[in-house]
């Protein structure tokens, strides 16, 4: 009988799904991914988690509950950081503990420590991960290599979404586990598309480009997400392809409280690009969310029609070209 490995569809699953699934399949396990988030999963998670945790963590516990009795192993990695000297939120470092002490009677955990902050040696972690399933080291390594190729393909396929100047485009920022979880973000990408706007996420931008921009920030950047968001924001400021920015943050998120503020201040100081911060938690109602989204879109539309005629210079006062302060009349 093959070993069943459960992967909760939450948090970093959205970043690493192809890697994890392909890896565990190739070492000979059967991978079970929890259902897409829904009300029941969230409610269950909320009951079992401390109140102060953020909604993605609660949702994670919900997914764990969903998988609990269906699998032999649960894959809950302890991810300290994936680049040198860059950490991620402390809740990820303590994720196995958060789950272990919130939910009773769990199946065995695969809680390999993935720490690339000090050295970029991945091998031990990979072997440890695989050792739960098989003793064949060669198989583990080759499975990882294959998985990595798949992951990279997936990553570069996301970059292919072209950014062009003609489109009506909105940049959506936020953690990947909020941006790609349709239940959590109330289908924001689909909704925006139905209004005729295409959505760009920081994942669509070129990594090197983002890093290059992020390096111009004066403070030390030690969060992966911070680097990504900030780099995209600075990219936005220099390149004028966007009609607006929507930042979706979860209530109580420590990183967002810093990142969103920095980005908002930068955007307001240096450009005229409209910015909206949406905070979600387990009490968010979809109607209120929609209203704000519609209002934001309306504002973008009105800007194009009404505010264009004010200028006496024959130049549109608020066209996309004039989002940059320097150009503004």
């Amino acid at each position, binding site marked *: 009988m093959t070993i069943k490995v459960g992967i909760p569809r939450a948090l970093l699953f959205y970043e690493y799904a192809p890697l994890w699934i392909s890896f565990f399949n190739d070492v000979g396990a059967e991978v079970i991914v929890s259902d897409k988030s829904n009300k029941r999963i969230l409610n269950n998670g909320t009951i079992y988690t*401390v109140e102060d945790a953020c909604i993605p963590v609660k949702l994670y516990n919900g997914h764990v509950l969903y998988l609990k009795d269906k699998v032999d192993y649960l894959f809950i990695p302890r991810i300290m950081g994936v680049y040198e000297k860059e950490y991620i939120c402390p809740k990820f*470092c*303590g994720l196995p503990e958060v789950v272990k002490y919130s939910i009773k009677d769990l199946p065995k955990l695969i809680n390999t420590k993935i720490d690339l902050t000090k050295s970029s040696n991945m091998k031990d972690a990979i072997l440890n991960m695989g050792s739960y399933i098989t003793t064949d080291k060669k198989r583990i390594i080759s499975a990882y290599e294959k998985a990595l190729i798949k992951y990279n393909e997936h990553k570069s396929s996301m970059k292919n979404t072209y950014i062009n100047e003609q489109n009506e485009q909105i940049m959506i920022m936020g953690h990947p586990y909020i941006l790609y979880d349709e239940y959590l973000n109330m289908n924001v990408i689909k909704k925006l598309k139905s209004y005729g706007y295409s959505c760009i996420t920081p994942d669509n931008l070129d990594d090197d480009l983002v890093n290059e921009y992020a390096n111009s920030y004066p403070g030390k950047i*030690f969060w992966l997400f911070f680097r990504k968001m900030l780099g995209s924001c600075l990219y936005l400021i220099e390149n004028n392809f966007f009609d607006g920015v929507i930042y979706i943050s979860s209530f109580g998120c*420590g990183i967002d*409280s*810093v990142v969103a*503020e920095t980005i908002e201040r930068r955007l307001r100081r240096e450009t005229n690009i409209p910015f909206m911060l949406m905070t979600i938690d387990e009490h968010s109602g979809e109607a209120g969310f929609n209203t704000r989204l519609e209002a934001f879109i309306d504002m973008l539309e009105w800007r194009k029609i009404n505010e264009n005629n004010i200028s006496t210079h024959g130049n549109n006062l608020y066209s996309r070209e004039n989002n940059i302060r320097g150009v503004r009349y």
Partner: protein
Amino acid sequence: MGTTYIPVKTILEELDIDVVLPPMSSKKTLELGIKCSPEAICVPFKIIMGNILEGIENGADTVFMLTGCGPCRFGIFHALQNEIIRDMNLKIEFITADRFSNLAGLKEFSARLKEASPKNNYLKIFNTIRKGLKILDAVDELQELTNKIRPIEINTGEVDYLDTNFSHEIRKVHGYDEAMNLIIDYKEKVSSVKIDKTKQLLKIGIVGEIYTILEPFINLNIEKKLGVLGIDVARSISASEYVREQLDFLPFVHSGKKTIYQAAKPYLEIPIGGHAINTIGNSMLYKKQNFDGIIHLLPFTCMPEIVAQCILPTIEKEQDIPIMTLVLDEMTGEAGYMTRLEAFVDLLVKRKDLKNEGNSLSWN
């Protein structure tokens, strides 16, 4: 942060830098801070922001602050504060020093100090840092003593009177010698307070995030409040211990870091940033030292402590020690807070009585 300003002030004064002390954190500080801070950030950020603004009001033109580079938000405070201040059209410079957990960090720290006071040479700077550390230790000892004496004093309020006087006077002294003399003076005064040695005391340990533990304005003077209720309070983190933890790569500095990490091992294997592992480890140590209860303090939305908060209920059950978690932010009301403290203490008293009775029964 609590009394940490004393050694820092001494260091800077010894180096002939003009020091502008912001007034003690107060409601006004917090309000100033809240106005211009992001809403979801933790209270320490807001207070520090307020401190900076009040410092500017008093004529400061440079902010000196420590930063750190770890998963906790603390390391990014200065950058964000810089942005905010820039948007407010205030002119102020930031001198930041990374935490000094290795030789390079220590070097950078002194280089930063030199930047602020070009007249001094490195030898003097190193000496001054050493003096500052001595002050830090002395202040912490004084505070510990105050906490020990407070619950057993015969004339209630005597220690608090000395404590308040001390914090007023320390702001007026200048330089190392004066500060040290004042601390020693007050140590003598506090130890000569009349005490009742026979009094039975409950022991409560305070664990949690460092800023909330050390800053009496945020934790609404928890040590004083508990002391008045007749409780022997031990706080797990002090500024001097924190500095020692940072410096313990040096062969002559010893800290309790290893013991704490060892104690935390059954529940949390590795440090995850902030003081989460200290919270867990110290709770276990308090249990071993037969404390009657533990109070866990954290600022609202503190990331590392939320992980600790997830683990603590299990420790409470498995180790059989009552733990109360108090989340602090600018909305914390003093009355409700006091009620919870009193209720917790009442329960502990009852629990101890029951335990004692149980023991005596079994002897019969």
